């Protein structure tokens, strides 16, 4: 991501990182708004860099939704300031502020722009959109949230993220719906504790980084490109491990944050919510496994005229597989 020829990208990337820090560490809500504006201002040049039709349309849609959300956010900040509702979190103003932040994140029911834009971006821009751009809205959400409203939004996120990905053939849209589903988990972890959110977010971004770097190295954007080339067994295995880890299956790294959240849910008797979390996770794992299972059965496809040579990048792939498998066990050594 940083190894490109354009120094403008490094400049805007620096400002992007800085804008999130401005937004989450400001003393007043106005400073938060300023950080969100600078975030928008510096992300648009990053994504509108190539000269095809797709990137123009992508940056336009991104600009329209994000600017509307941040302007609504500012208006609600002003109303909250003028009516002096600083500590009352159960009213219409907190619902409006949370709605505008949810629109910035791409969470349901404001998610309709998110798969469209993810379809139009390259893999590295997708990585920035799916991980870094979610930090500042989520931390701002944790400062003034409306619990009942957010639980309803979480349920919508989970359902839309799981059911929306069933009919997708583009890998980017698949990861977009998976990202919407994981947003549901992350918003709930904000309501538990911010430390837990940080933990979930770090592991999620690590998993997404592994997947996106694998797809980026193989230059794959669609599902039919996955097995039409002759992949090494270890790349297929790494793909399987990454997908299962993203879905939250037990021996892999992605299970750990979900386990902690489910633990909290069951202890505090959120039984219906636990049911929805579990069932939507099942649907997600279904469509992950649907992608990769046929490459491991006895009769898998092996085209002999397209050979995918990845001699130089195998160490990164093996390292990521190792981390995904062994991190649950290794974590017990660290936190003792």
């Amino acid at each position, binding site marked *: 991501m940083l190894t490109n020829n354009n120094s403008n990208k490094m400049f805007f990337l620096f400002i992007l990182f800085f804008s999130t820090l401005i937004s989450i560490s400001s003393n007043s809500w*106005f400073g938060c*708004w*300023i950080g969100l*504006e*600078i975030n*928008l*201002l510096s992300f*648009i040049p990053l994504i*509108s860099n190539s*000269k*095809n*039709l*797709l990137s*123009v*349309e*992508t*940056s*336009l*849609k991104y*600009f*329209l939704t994000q*600017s*509307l959300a941040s*302007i*609504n956010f*500012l*208006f609600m900040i*002003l109303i909250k*300031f*003028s009516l002096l509702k600083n500590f009352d979190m159960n009213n219409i103003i907190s619902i409006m502020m949370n709605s505008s932040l949810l629109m910035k994140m791409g969470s349901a029911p404001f998610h309709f722009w998110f798969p*469209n*834009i993810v*379809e*139009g971006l390259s893999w590295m821009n997708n990585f920035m959109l799916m991980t870094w751009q979610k930090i500042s809205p989520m931390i701002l959400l944790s400062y003034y949230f409306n619990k009942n409203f957010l639980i309803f939004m979480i349920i919508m996120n989970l359902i839309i993220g799981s059911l929306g990905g069933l009919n997708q053939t583009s890998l980017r849209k698949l990861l977009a719906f998976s990202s919407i589903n994981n947003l549901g988990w992350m918003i709930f972890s904000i309501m538990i504790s911010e430390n837990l959110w940080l933990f979930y977010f770090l592991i999620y971004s690590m998993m997404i980084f592994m997947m996106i770097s694998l797809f980026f190295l193989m230059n794959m954007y669609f599902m039919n490109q996955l097995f039409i080339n002759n992949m090494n067994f270890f790349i297929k295995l790494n793909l399987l491990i990454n997908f299962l880890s993203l879905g939250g299956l037990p021996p892999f790294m992605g299970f750990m944050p979900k386990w902690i959240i489910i633990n909290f849910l069951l202890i505090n008797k959120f039984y219906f919510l636990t049911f929805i979390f579990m069932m939507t996770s099942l649907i997600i794992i279904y469509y992950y496994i649907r992608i990769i299972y046929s490459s491991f059965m006895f009769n898998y496809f092996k085209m002999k005229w397209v050979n995918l040579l990845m001699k130089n990048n195998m160490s990164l792939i093996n390292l990521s597989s190792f981390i995904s498998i062994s991190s649950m066990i290794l974590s017990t050594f660290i936190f003792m």
Partner: protein
Amino acid sequence: MLIYDIWFLFIYMFFVGNLIFVSKNKHLLVVLLSLEFIVLSIFFFFLVLLMFIDYDMYMLMVFLVFSVCEGSLGLSILVSMIRSHGNDYFQSFSML
């Protein structure tokens, strides 16, 4: 307290601006204009708010600078869209 009826004006302007933003228009420029209208309503609101509590207007200036930056960003995206598509109609979106 008839002076407090001014709040209704801001909310009305804000909602009308949002309504134009989400309506089906032929041109993109109408959407950007509605964004600027919302910015105008927030500017007015901010002005009256800061006057009522006797603050200085510096925050208003900062808000104005950022809104103008955002408006110019929207216009530059409009320009790049016209360069690639030839017009700014919403019908020419077919990719995504």
